[in-house]
């Protein structure tokens, strides 16, 4: 995808720090030296084209009181599709990836309360007959990845 340099400037500038003010664009228009309508129009277009997946606040699910974990399973190749179907059927399973490893299925479980994580894991183990490795994060060394556009 070839991006216009103004689009790049907007993406690189706006990955964080969108102002929380009544007229948030004023400050940005000054900083970027681009008219407000043009910035808005470009963000709108990039969202439509899929260059941007979202514009707005990113919430931290755990701090809202929910439970979140990463789980992994060893699934025999001949059972892979069947197990995928069982795991994906849980609304609490947000993402699920096949990965190249003996532990070949990795999924994120997100629940309304932390206690529900174990319930979901237990159900998945019962329904698949496989062990679920529960790997909640113990510490986060966090730096928002800023993609150079």
């Amino acid at each position, binding site marked *: 995808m070839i991006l216009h340099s103004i689009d790049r400037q907007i993406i690189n500038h706006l990955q964080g720090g969108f102002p929380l003010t009544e007229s948030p664009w004023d400050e940005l228009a000054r900083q970027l030296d681009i008219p407000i309508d043009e910035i808005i129009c470009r963000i709108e277009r990039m969202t439509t084209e899929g260059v941007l997946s979202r*514009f707005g606040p990113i*919430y931290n699910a755990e701090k809202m009181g929910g439970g979140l974990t990463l789980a992994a399973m060893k699934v025999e190749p001949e059972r892979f599709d069947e197990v995928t179907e069982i795991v994906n059927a849980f609304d609490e399973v947000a993402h699920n990836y096949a990965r190249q490893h003996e532990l070949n299925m990795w999924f994120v479980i997100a629940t309304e309360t932390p206690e529900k994580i174990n319930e979901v894991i237990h159900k998945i183990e019962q329904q698949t007959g496989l062990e679920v490795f529960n790997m909640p994060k113990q510490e986060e060394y966090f730096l928002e990845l800023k993609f150079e556009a």
Partner: protein
Amino acid sequence: MSASPQAMTERTEIDAIDRQIIAATQGGLPLSRHPYHDIAEQLGLDVQQVLQRMQLMLDKGIIRRIGVIPNHYKLGYKSNGMSVWNIPDEKISAAGMKVGSLDFVSHCYQRPRFLPAWPYNLFAMVHGKTHDEVIAQVEQIARLLGEDNRGHEILFSTRILKKTGLRIG
């Protein structure tokens, strides 16, 4: 920019009005001249109230940040690998900070080991434009960690089996 550990046990109270604001903004802000004003109007709240509550959520880390979220795939970062590392427990914090502050690493977490099947306790998601770039970046991490690295692997994803956003009600 520096990486900092964030305790995960910390939970913060949010009330019904906060939840309304979250529900109205988690899919994105309106692309209008006065987005917070529009949210306030939609919810029957005062704009100052919306701004104050969102500022408080930002201060408490309930909102991580506000801005654009690029689709990294469309920006050319087409490869990602989950690198996993076996780090002595007493070295994990220093190692995590080092790895977490690399610009090609996102989501750097300490997670529990499952011995003997799974000896790794540090996870770092590495993003690159190509598969080879990801491999080179993982080698760079290995050099950075030196003897504190007691073994590592890269788990490339072969297929997305499910992908939905995390949403609250």
